């Protein structure tokens, strides 16, 4: 089984600027794939390269086995949902959705029928006659989706399609997009800077920094086992503690504030060697024991420096003994658990299995 999309050693230069650095990537048929990264990391350039709006400076791109070198955007089996949606303002909703059908050999009534079906699929049944400029942001996005999906592309490319929507609508569209993708079975490639969105929607995520893929993994691996401090920092919240590796094969370390720990090989990079390093731990992987709770095996002492109450959660900044930087710990506000005050002492319970070692 060959990959539907196969990029090999793709580079892109704009003058001196190196926008894509040796990107190699395989995306399977039917996958929901995300390109995640901060602005300027090259994720949009990569998407536009797949769409055919940018030519790679070197490297190869195959879609469904066909070399895309020199194939213009209008001849590629890809369609795109643009960040601005790019709805044609001089056309009606139906004319927008049917825009790409001009060359299709099917009859006019068939075309109108498929436009109706596409509109129904995105929940805009009966909107066909409306003027495009009279639509709301969410509706424009649905039109853009229908317009791309009606052509039954092999790959649908989405360039930050949800960034212009408000939070409620964005969350609704996230699940709707996911449902739609499962329904049509088309490969989706989503560009986003929102790590939560990438985790929620994707089968796999490629995290990009400065034109390079820093890590390519499924959402759980990405969150639990980031390969670098940068990835761990970008995805969610992560605390970093200085550490010293004593034994690189058995992976024994001393972690500031936590003491001596032994971790499993999959929690450390294969390049780990003895000497100074860093350990990452997620805020929800630690907990503050409250009065009356029995002591656990692994406890660190600390003082609460700050707290933020979110309703369902409380975030504490805790100063551990012998650690300069405070660490963040999140606690669910379950029944009977008090919200602690600034200045209280905290017994912090943690688990060696939730640590990740970084050697960079």
């Amino acid at each position, binding site marked *: 089984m060959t990959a539907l999309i196969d990029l090999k050693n793709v580079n892109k230069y704009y003058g001196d600027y190196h926008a894509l650095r040796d990107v190699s990537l395989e995306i399977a048929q039917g996958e929901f794939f995300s390109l995640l990264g901060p602005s300027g990391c090259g994720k949009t350039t990569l998407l536009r390269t797949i769409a055919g709006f940018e030519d790679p400076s070197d490297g190869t791109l195959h879609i469904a086995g066909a070399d895309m070198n020199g194939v213009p955007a*209008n001849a590629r089996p*890809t369609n795109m949902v643009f960040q*601005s949606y*790019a709805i044609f303002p*001089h056309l009606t909703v139906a004319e927008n959705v049917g825009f*790409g059908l001009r060359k299709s050999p099917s009859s006019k009534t068939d075309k109108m029928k498929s436009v109706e079906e596409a509109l129904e699929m995105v929940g805009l049944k009966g909107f066909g006659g409306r003027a495009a400029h009279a639509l709301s942001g969410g509706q424009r996005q649905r039109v853009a989706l229908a317009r791309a999906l009606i052509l039954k592309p092999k790959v649908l490319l989405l360039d930050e399609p949800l960034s212009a929507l408000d939070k409620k609508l964005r969350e609704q569209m996230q699940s709707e997009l996911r449902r739609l993708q499962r329904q049509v079975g088309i490969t989706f490639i989503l560009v986003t800077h929102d790590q939560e969105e990438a985790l929620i929607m994707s089968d796999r995520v490629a995290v990009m920094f400065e034109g390079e893929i820093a890590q390519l993994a499924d959402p759980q691996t990405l969150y639990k086992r980031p390969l670098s401090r940068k990835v761990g920092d970008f995805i969610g919240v992560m605390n970093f503690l200085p550490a010293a590796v004593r034994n690189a094969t058995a992976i024994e370390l001393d972690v500031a504030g936590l003491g001596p720990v032994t971790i499993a090989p999959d929690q450390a990079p294969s390049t780990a060697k003895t000497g100074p390093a860093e350990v990452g731990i997620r805020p929800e992987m630690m907990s503050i024991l409250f009065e009356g709770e029995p002591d656990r095996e692994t406890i660190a002492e600390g003082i609460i420096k700050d707290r933020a109450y979110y309703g369902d959660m409380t975030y504490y900044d805790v100063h551990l003994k012998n650690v300069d930087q405070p660490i963040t710990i999140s606690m669910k506000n379950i029944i009977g658990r008090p919200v602690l005050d600034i200045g209280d002492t905290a017994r912090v319970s943690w688990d060696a299995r939730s640590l990740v070692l970084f050697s960079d």
Partner: protein
Amino acid sequence: MLSRLAGMDAPLAILNTENKKGLALISAPLGYVIAMLAVPLAAILLISFWTQDFQTFDTTPTLNNYREAVTDPLYRELLFRSIRIAGLVTLVTVLLAFPIAYFISFHVAPSRKSLWLFLITIPFWTSYLIRVFLWKVILGFNGVLNSGLQTVGIIDEPLTFILYNANAVVITLAHAFAPFAILPIFVALEKIDRSLLEASQDLGESKLSTFFRVTLPLAMPGVVAAVLIVFIPTIGDYVTPRLVGGPDGLMIANMIQVQFLRLNNAPMGATLAVIAMVSVSLIALLFVALNRRYLRGPR
């Protein structure tokens, strides 16, 4: 009762302060426009219903002038010729202006666009009259063009179809009005979201068909503006046909001038002016309506 009074007071208060302020602000230009535009127009309209009685006006209202203007083949020919020449000038100007506007909008680096627009306005640094004279020098029997072509041996006899006829009027006016056509088209092209063009290509259209399906329809407001800006003044142009038009290139404005100043028949001149104005208005309205209906232009 009190609330009703308050409700009635509020709009009156707005009328008193806001409207007074507004009226005060526009009174000076309004007075100027009334004195210099509305009054003369009303006078022309009024005089067109009078008749010339040697040195004085016979002020009995009559439609005789209009009857004569419509039936006399000379006047009709001049009006139709004016419309034809203005239409041709508009067509040539807009067709030449569009590629220039397109080039500046799509192919000139953003930092250099203002420089290009500045260059386009350079012809305005010379007076309109002098530019018309220059075309006379270029197109004349012994002009730059003819002597140049004769020197290099392309022609033996001077070309005569380029001066003192309608062609010369079209060439001269098209050159004079080119910047007026370029600017509105450029503005309309600048406003087009470039991702629309990518979307069109993404949906299977080539660059050429994208131009006809997306770029041109979206640029139509600018094209319509250019057409009106060129057509309306050229139909009434007087200087260019006078200087380079010869007998076959004379237009309705020249006849109006003749009626007023040579034949001492101001009522007939006024009638021709009114007919010309009405024709221009009708054609302009028709064009805007057609554009809205068929080309999905400005909304």
